[in-house]
Structures are given as C-alpha cells and as structure tokens.
C-alpha cells in the first residue's frame, strides 16, 4: 500500500575487513555542467580520523555529500562499509544514513523542534524505545555543553549553539562513520577544542571520523591524516599531516594582499 511500511534491513560491514570508505575513480558533475570532483581515489579504514582541507569551493562538501548519498557519483564508485552507494535503492538510503552521522555546514536543524527534540528525532526514526530517549538526549546535550538550552528552538540559539545541537544530533546514534563539514566554523577556540576532543573520543570508540575544515590550528595541533583538495582533485594525502594548501604554503599572509583593490572604488 503505497510502500508506506516497507522496511528493508541494511547493515554496513564494520568488521574492518573492508575499508570504511572506498572511493574509486570518482567524478562528480553538477547539473549545470560544473565538474566538482575529478578522478578521486581514496580509502579510509575503520577507526581512522581524517581531515579534509582545501580552499573554498575545492569540493570538500561535495565529497562528503557523496558519502551519505545526498549526491550520486557521475562516474566511478563510492563504497561505504562495503555498500556500493550507486546501487542503493531509494528505500535503503534512510538506513545508510542512520549508520552515518553528519554534521552539516549549515546545521540543518528542524526549525519547529527544540534542541532536545532535534536530537531526539534522530533516535525516534530508528525505533529506539521511548523511555530510553530522554536520558540519551540529555547525555549528548551535556557532552556538547548545551544542557541548559535543551528546550530552546533553533531560532533562540546563537550560531555556535546551533552548531553544537547539530553535533549532538550526529553523535546520538553512535554512527559507524561520522562526517563533519566545518563543525567548528561558528565556535570559539575553546569550544572548538572541546568539540575536537569529543571527536577524538568518538574515534577511539571505533568510529571513523572525517572532518572537513578550514581551521588551520586544529589541523596542525591534532596531527591526523590530512587530505588536501584543490579544484576537485585530491592533491595530497598526508599521514599525521599539517594544514597546507598547495602552492602558497600554510596560513595567513599579512603583507601580500592577493586581490587588486585598485579596480574598485570604495
């Protein structure tokens, strides 16, 4: 009846026998013809912690979107936990997404639900027993330091607080793969560091973590594997790497403004 109830069971292979992420000759071309990813090859093993860096528009978010099947590859293969996402049936996608926690660059909180309800929603969809939900939600909100704002709607939270709700939601299901897209862009350094510690802890518990970020300090201090993207190409893959964008080296350039101002009257 309208497929209202079908419920395929689907499990990722988290044994460690297959890579958690296995990307092979991946191309991604958007509808308007823009090619966002070129021939990306990449393997990430179970339990790894990986930073994904690159200039704005280099394709980091696009790559992550492919891993939770918001996008489909134009060519090549994307395997997560042994599942080929190109083959995934439409009604199987939700089950993939329950094993993959995502922290979105733009938060994507449900505007008519409170912080706690947003986190609880991710549990409700999995059929978690009703009585277990409140304590689990409280725990995770405590972890991100938002216990006192559990009953606020997103519109009543500051940018950084919304970001922490999004982080809490991505963690609550204890995902096998955690994808974080600029998870600390709206956080102060102390909060940033707290969140990074949490992600480390999550990794230690066996979760594979992929973090796209522009935060040089974080990448430099954490010394994890670093993937560098440039215009849709994966140009570097560094074990225990530091933040560097190809060519210009790392960090800020006080004395070299790179855009000619003279053209503009301001």
């Amino acid at each position: 009846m309208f497929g209202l109830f079908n419920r395929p069971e689907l499990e990722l292979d988290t044994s460690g026998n297959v890579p958690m992420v296995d990307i092979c000759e991946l191309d991604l071309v958007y509808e308007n013809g823009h090619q966002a990813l070129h021939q990306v090859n990449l393997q990430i093993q179970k339990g790894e912690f990986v930073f994904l860096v690159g200039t704005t528009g280099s394709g980091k978010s696009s790559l992550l979107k492919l891993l939770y099947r918001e996008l489909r590859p134009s060519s090549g293969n994307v395997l997560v936990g042994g599942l080929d996402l190109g083959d995934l049936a439409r009604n199987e996608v939700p089950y993939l997404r329950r094993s993959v926690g995502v922290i979105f660059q733009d938060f994507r909180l449900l505007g008519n639900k409170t912080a706690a309800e947003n986190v609880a929603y991710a549990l409700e969809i999995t059929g978690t027993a009703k009585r277990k939900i409140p304590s689990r939600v409280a725990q995770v909100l405590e972890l991100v330091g938002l216990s006192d704002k559990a009953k606020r709607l997103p519109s009543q939270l500051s940018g950084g607080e919304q970001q922490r709700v999004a982080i809490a939601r991505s963690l609550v299901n204890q995902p096998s793969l955690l994808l974080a897209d600029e998870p600390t862009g709206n956080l102060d350094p102390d909060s940033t560091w707290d969140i990074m510690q949490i992600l480390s802890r999550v990794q230690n518990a066996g979760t594979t973590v992929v973090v796209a970020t522009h935060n040089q300090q974080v990448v430099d201090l954490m010394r994890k594997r670093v993937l560098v993207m440039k215009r849709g190409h994966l140009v570097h893959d560094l074990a225990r790497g530091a933040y560097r964008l190809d060519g210009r080296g790392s960090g800020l350039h006080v004395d070299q403004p790179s855009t000619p101002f003279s053209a503009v009257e301001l």
Partner: protein
Amino acid sequence: MMGYSGYFFREVLTNIRRSPLMSVASVTTVLVLTLILGYFTALMMNLEALAHSLLREVQVVAYLDDDANRVSVAQQLDRIPGVEEAHFVSKETALKKLVERMQGRIKVDDLTRNPLPDSYEVAVDSADSLELVAKRAQRIAGVSYVKYGEEIAQRMLRFNSLVRTVGVVILGLLFLSTVLIVSNTIRLTVFARRKEIEIMQMVGAAEWFIRWPFIMEGVLQGLVGSVVAATLVGGSYSLVVPKLMQTITFLPIVQAEDLLPMLIPALIFNGAFVGGLGSLLSVNKFLKV
C-alpha cells in the same frame, strides 16, 4: 507502525501548535468547500424530489363511451403491463370538479345535461410506460378517447432528466474542485515545510516515518473542517426546512431526517479523505532521494 501512532499524533499536535497558520488555512478551505458541497447536495436532493413529485402527476385518462361496460374496461385496463391502478371517475364527479375548478365561470343551472363522459384515471408505474399504456387502452372496446398529456409528460420527463444530469455533473465538478483546491492548499503547506522534509531524510528517517504525521495532519485538518461544515449544514437545514414547509406549501421539500443521516457522514468522510489524500500526494512530491 501502530507502535508509532502515539508518537505521530504528538508530532501532529506539536506541529499545529507551533505553526497554526497553515492548519487554519487548510481547515478553513476544507470547511468552506464542504459547506458549498453540502448545501448544493441538499439543493439537488430537493430539486430531485420536486421533479419526482411532478412526474407522479402524469397519468393516463381513458374516457368511456356512454354505453361502455365499466367492469370489463377496468379488467382490461388492469391487464395492461405498467398499469398500477385504474380509478373510476363518474361523469357527475367530473362535472363537479370542473365547476369547482372554474370557480363561477360556468353556471351549472345553464346545463340541461352533463356534457362530460365517464372516465378512468390510470396510474402507471413509470413515465416510460405512459405511451404504451395509452396505446393499449385505446384499443379496449368501450374506450372512446385516451389522453395522457403527452406534452406535459414530455416536459416533466425532460425536466426530470435535465435536473438529474445537471445535478450529477455539477456535484461531480464540485467534488473534483474540492479535491483539487484542498490538495492544492495542503501541497502549499507541505511546500512551506519542504526544508523540514529534506532534513528528516538527511538524518535517515524512512519515507513512511516522514509521511505518516503529514497524512494524519491532513486527515485531522480535513476532519475538523468538515465536521464544522457538516454541523453548519445540518443545523441550518433542520432549522430552515420546517419554516420553509410552512410558507412554500406548493413545493415538496426533503425532510431533514431523510437527508441528514446520509449527508452528514458523507461530508465528514469526504473531508477526512480529501485531507489525507491531499497530504499523501503532496508529501510524495517532496520525498525525493
């Protein structure tokens, strides 16, 4: 899914509470359209009753020769298929009726002799039988002349079928309009929440899990709107009809108790159905992976 129904129901209530505008819009739309549908159905039923009552007045009259055998004619009339009853009207009764009807325009004293013949008024089972019955009656010995008001009968028949056809067509179109407008309205409320649906899909909610609260919300909105409308239709009908019956005695009016026990549940069911279906179709539009 049963285990979730409590959860879904709470979802729906929370959602209505936090963005009441959308619910108000859907409910009002269902309400107004159900009102139109309800009143129109009531009007149709009355027109149908009127057409039917007019039809019943059409009958075949067989005028007899002066020397005809009443009993034999009656027997033969009874044997014609389609005849329900043959009622004898003597020439005296006929004259009395005529004089009555002419209210002083005929002076009975002037008549040396009753100019009218005896007759049988023959009731038939349906308008379709009229012509056949008239033809067969004409052939009976002792019947001088048969009249069945071809013209009036034709008019009544045409009027009847016209009312029925137009009524069914309009009712059908009104129903379609209701479905269309309600699902349009609901589609807009769902459209306003498309981001929400997108996010629900992103965090891994199955389609049925997303769909059910919307469907329940649609059904609920449809129910509320149509219950109010049905109450208004029912209330006003049972209020107005008795008054109308006093003033317009010449038109047959369908009694409230003959109409409402059918109409009210139909309207309510319709509202809930259209609300639910509208939601289902709309949500499906935005459920793309």
